[in-house]
């Protein structure tokens, strides 16, 4: 019974392919036209069904019994296609984001608002990255590759690294300002950060290097104190926090999957 459906959705040779693609487009447009005229009371249930079915795929893939030998069930082989589908859909929203950029900065330039030249620089940078990025992939022009290299390796990668490195400055000012013995909590935070810092650097280790490397007193060496904090206290506390996050995430997922979620986006009349 499934046979004709499977055959219908199989790959098609180039000769008939255009007809199938065109057919799919026309069919989809018809469905969209139909949806446009859908009465409003049926809209929310339809969305709920789509959401449920999408989630059901992954849930079923997880819960269905598996074949011990291959570690698979009937759905496992479709995981790759599903993740492609997800990336394709998610990727298509990027254009909406780019449109937002174009709108904000296009308007800045058109009205010559203060700093319009920065907006211009943004658009020029964007266009040149697209042009040379695509030439780099689909063309074989050596000088285009060179320009792309300047844009990507030279500028983008270094800018990433620079913004990342600014955190070094901020970490200094933040710790200087925040680590004061104002309250019990602030004091605990400061003392542990201080101890761990000592354990991190050779200078700190040298301070307790006179202690023996074995036995009870060895545990008072700063590097061992640091390790103890990380492996006992830290690991346990982080695990406890993680359990809470896990249960919380599961709860929200359930609510969304079953369309039980409330609040902003979900309660609006459509």
């Amino acid at each position: 019974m499934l046979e004709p459906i499977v055959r219908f959705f199989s790959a098609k040779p180039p000769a008939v392919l255009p007809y199938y693609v065109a057919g799919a487009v026309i069919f989809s447009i018809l469905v969209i036209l139909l949806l446009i005229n859908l009465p409003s009371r049926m809209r929310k249930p339809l969305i709920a069904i789509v959401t449920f079915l999408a989630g059901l795929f992954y849930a079923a893939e997880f819960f269905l019994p598996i074949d011990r030998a291959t570690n698979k069930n009937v759905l496992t082989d479709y995981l790759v296609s599903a993740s492609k589908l997800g990336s394709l859909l998610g990727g298509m929203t990027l254009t909406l984001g780019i449109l937002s950029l174009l709108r904000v900065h296009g308007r800045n330039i058109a009205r010559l608002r203060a700093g319009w030249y920065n907006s211009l620089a943004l658009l020029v940078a964007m266009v040149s990255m697209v042009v040379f990025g695509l030439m780099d992939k689909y063309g074989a022009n050596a000088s285009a590759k060179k320009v792309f290299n300047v844009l990507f390796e030279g500028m983008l990668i270094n800018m990433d690294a620079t913004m990342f490195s600014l955190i070094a400055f901020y970490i200094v000012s933040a710790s200087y300002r925040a680590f004061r013995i104002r309250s019990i909590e602030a004091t605990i935070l400061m003392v542990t950060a201080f101890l761990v810092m000592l354990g991190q650097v050779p200078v700190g280790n040298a301070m307790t290097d006179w202690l023996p490397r074995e036995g009870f007193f060895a545990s008072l060496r700063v590097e061992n104190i640091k390790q103890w904090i990380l492996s006992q206290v830290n690991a346990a506390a982080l695990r406890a926090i993680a359990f809470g996050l896990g249960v919380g995430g599961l709860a929200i997922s359930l609510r969304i999957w079953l369309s039980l979620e409330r609040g902003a986006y979900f309660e609006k009349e459509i």
Partner: protein
Amino acid sequence: MEALWQDILSRPAIYAGAICTIGLMTLVYRENAVYRFFEHVFIGLAAGFSIVVLIKEILDPFLYQPVFKKGEWYWTFVFMFGLLFYFIHSRKYNWLSRLPIGFLMGFAAGQAFQSFANTYLPQIAVSFRPLYVTRADGSVDVSAGINNLIFMIVLVTVMSYFFFSFEQKSKVIRNSAQFGRWVMMVAFGAIFGTTIMARMALLFDRMYFLFSDWLRWVQ
């Protein structure tokens, strides 16, 4: 002057990188016109690169190749479904965009079962810590036992901090939650302390880039 030009032309990426690095670094002094310019260039380049990635790594391999090279025509439906996103700017048919959005939400939600099982379930059994520990030679390891006890106390008290609905009128729960919060501060202090190392390494890398790769003052 001539020599400088030669140098720039022979390694343009390094020069471009150095100028961008200095431009963005001026932010720590304060926000200024130079920073603003490089910030915009940065966002522009990043947006351009995202478009390139979208075409190269998503549209090409997941849409164009399967449909037109392998004849898997049914991917066309996915593309058409994705077009519904663009109704978001329509006043009247705005709700249509909720279909693909709902689909993506369902996708994300459905994965929660597997990711919960994968991430959190194995951590339960590893938290079974014996309070009585023996070494390989049969002697009792007191410090390991104490460490395990501390581990359990931390785990339980921190978890008790995250009980929201059990009334905290009970003194035991309230004290336990307070203690749990303090212990979390120990953990956060430790994370802060360990992270400094990595961030300083990044700043060092930038300075090395400027003084060695670019200026060649250091070998």
